[in-house]
């Protein structure tokens, strides 16, 4: 009887410690757990080759005023070194023909060029420009570039598990490792089942929440990638930007040449 009592006591005392130990060993530490979650996001997103989409960007001011911009976004996956993206503007008409080429490197600083049709000139943009607004929207170039997950660019920390609109999510904090970021940290909700990013909270350098990105209306494409048709960035000021993606095309045979400085000039 005594031995049973001792055994019971031992179990009762040891149970929380055992639980704590198993949680830690099974899920590793929060840092590697966070990194693993993003490694899975990156892995499931890779292999699309190239993609093109037409994108409508709606700027909604707190005052109620709205403005619309229309562009095409083409992206090429580069083996072992991130991606190359060309954003070409179609509307408003005074920026029609303007195009921005970005090399998103997996670890090194990104490189960016803009083509100005009025002067037929391609100009390299200083890295600091990434923190400025993208076409007057709530997005910055940095926000757009980091939608292309480059694992080494952040430090990660798993925070918790929680549901977001009914979807079980893993919530991970990521801290930029690259210079001149506008953010101290970002908190990211990753859909547990599909390994896709559903929401990002951006905290400025003073660690104050600046804005929140929500990705919705996901569709699965034949190349097995999930893509969000809508991305909504809402700033704490009340201004918002809605990106609507349409007509996704994958693997249309785009090559490095299509994403060169020479190709920017039209």
């Amino acid at each position: 009887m005594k031995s049973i009592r001792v055994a019971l006591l031992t179990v009762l005392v040891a149970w929380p410690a055992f639980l704590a130990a198993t949680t830690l060993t099974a899920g590793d530490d929060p840092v590697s757990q966070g990194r693993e979650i993003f490694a899975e996001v990156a892995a499931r997103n890779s292999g699309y080759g190239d993609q093109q989409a037409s994108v409508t960007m709606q700027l909604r001011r707190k005052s109620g005023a709205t403005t619309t911009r229309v562009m095409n976004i083409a992206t090429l996956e580069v083996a072992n070194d991130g991606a190359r993206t060309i954003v070409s503007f179609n509307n408003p008409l005074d920026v029609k023909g303007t195009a921005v080429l970005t090399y998103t490197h997996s670890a090194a600083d990104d490189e960016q060029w803009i083509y100005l049709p009025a002067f037929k000139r391609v100009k390299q943009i200083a890295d600091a420009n990434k923190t400025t607004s993208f076409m007057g929207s709530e997005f910055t170039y940095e926000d757009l570039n980091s939608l292309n997950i480059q694992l080494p660019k952040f430090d990660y920390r798993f925070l918790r598990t929680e549901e977001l609109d009914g979807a079980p999510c893993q919530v991970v904090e990521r801290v930029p490792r690259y210079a001149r970021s506008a953010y101290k940290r970002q908190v990211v909700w990753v859909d547990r089942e599909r390994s896709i990013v559903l929401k990002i909270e951006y905290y400025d350098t003073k660690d104050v929440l600046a804005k929140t990105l929500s990705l919705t209306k996901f569709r699965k494409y034949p190349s097995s990638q999930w893509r969000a048709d809508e991305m909504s960035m809402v700033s704490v000021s009340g201004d918002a930007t809605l990106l609507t993606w349409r007509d996704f095309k994958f693997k249309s045979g785009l090559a490095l040449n299509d994403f060169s400085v020479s190709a920017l000039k039209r």
Partner: protein
Amino acid sequence: MGRIYRVALIACAVGVAFAGRLDAQVSLSGDLSGEVRTFVDAPVLPGEKSTTAQPGFSGEVKFEAPNLFDRFDVTINPYYRYDAVDSGRSIFDLHTAKIATHGDRWRFKAGYDVEFWGVMEFVNPVNVLNQRDLTDDIVGKRRLGQPMADVTVLGKWGTLDLYALTGFQPLQFPAATGRLRPAIPIRQDEEKYGSGTGRGQPEGAIRYFQNFGNVYVGLSHFYGFGREPEMLLQADSSGAPFLAPKYNLEHQTGLELQVTFGNLVLKSEDVLRQDVQGNRHSSGVSVGGEYNLSGLIKGGRTLTVFGEYSYDSRDKSLIIPFNRDGFAGARIAMNDRRSTEIQLWANYDVAEQRVDVISGDVNTRLSDRVKATVGYRAVVAGKGAFASVARDSHVVFKIQTLF
């Protein structure tokens, strides 16, 4: 190339567009702008019309047919400008009329086009292929289309362009009735060429560029007519003096350098020129940088400041207005829904110790289809090369309607 040829080319392209092969792919865009230049002072040179307001309009159309027969991109972009007072400012130019195609590691294009070389903001000595549109704006950046064939080869080692050019475009000067001209009239009908073939002279160029991490390097060599003419002082039958532009055949070797350190971009353009006889040599050096100060202002606005110095061993004139000059400038992009931009700059002639020009521009979108620009060009000292334009400070109002 004659005007008939140009019209035929456009007609051809439009014909193809309406042939129905392309429908969804073809795009047509452009603008029509009304412009008034208002001079602060009355004119002083003989012949200059005494109106203070100089109205005009300009317009351009861009016709694009990408992926024609799955292979070719056709782009046609004619430009026309009319000035009611100064016929020298009225021009028709084919900025672009080209056919282009490409493979995995190469590109090819042939026809009229504008190719920008260089990295500087104010003076681009390296940028030699296209003639400047001198009468558009005293400090303007518009260039005239140039007939060329260009083969581009791309590799991990960089990009190499080979150009064959012909159909040289001479500078267009203000007419005797126009402002912003030298005291002695320039007669374009007395243009001279340092080669018997004249404007049909074959020209060639080669350019290599590459990014090595944060360092950009460009190397180029050009053979053809120097884009800035030598001015010969001559007299007509009545003994009245005039200037005759003479374009000499020369070689120009150029270097472009740019280094980016986060917020700071340092850059340089350098050229050596030598005429084909080996008698005349000249050089040009531009150095400077731009600094992004966006962190200092709130609301997502972009503030960039520029500082540059430009040297040219040739004499200062209205064609080469800056030869030992420093520049300071700033550009503010408001990043608002009207995409408002403000740009300010001034030169400082280090040799003469004076400011010649202060320039300011504000442009904003009034609606999706209408854009407005107000600019001011102040001729400050009005001495030396700027003496004949001392009283030509002016305001430019421009309303652009886009389609």
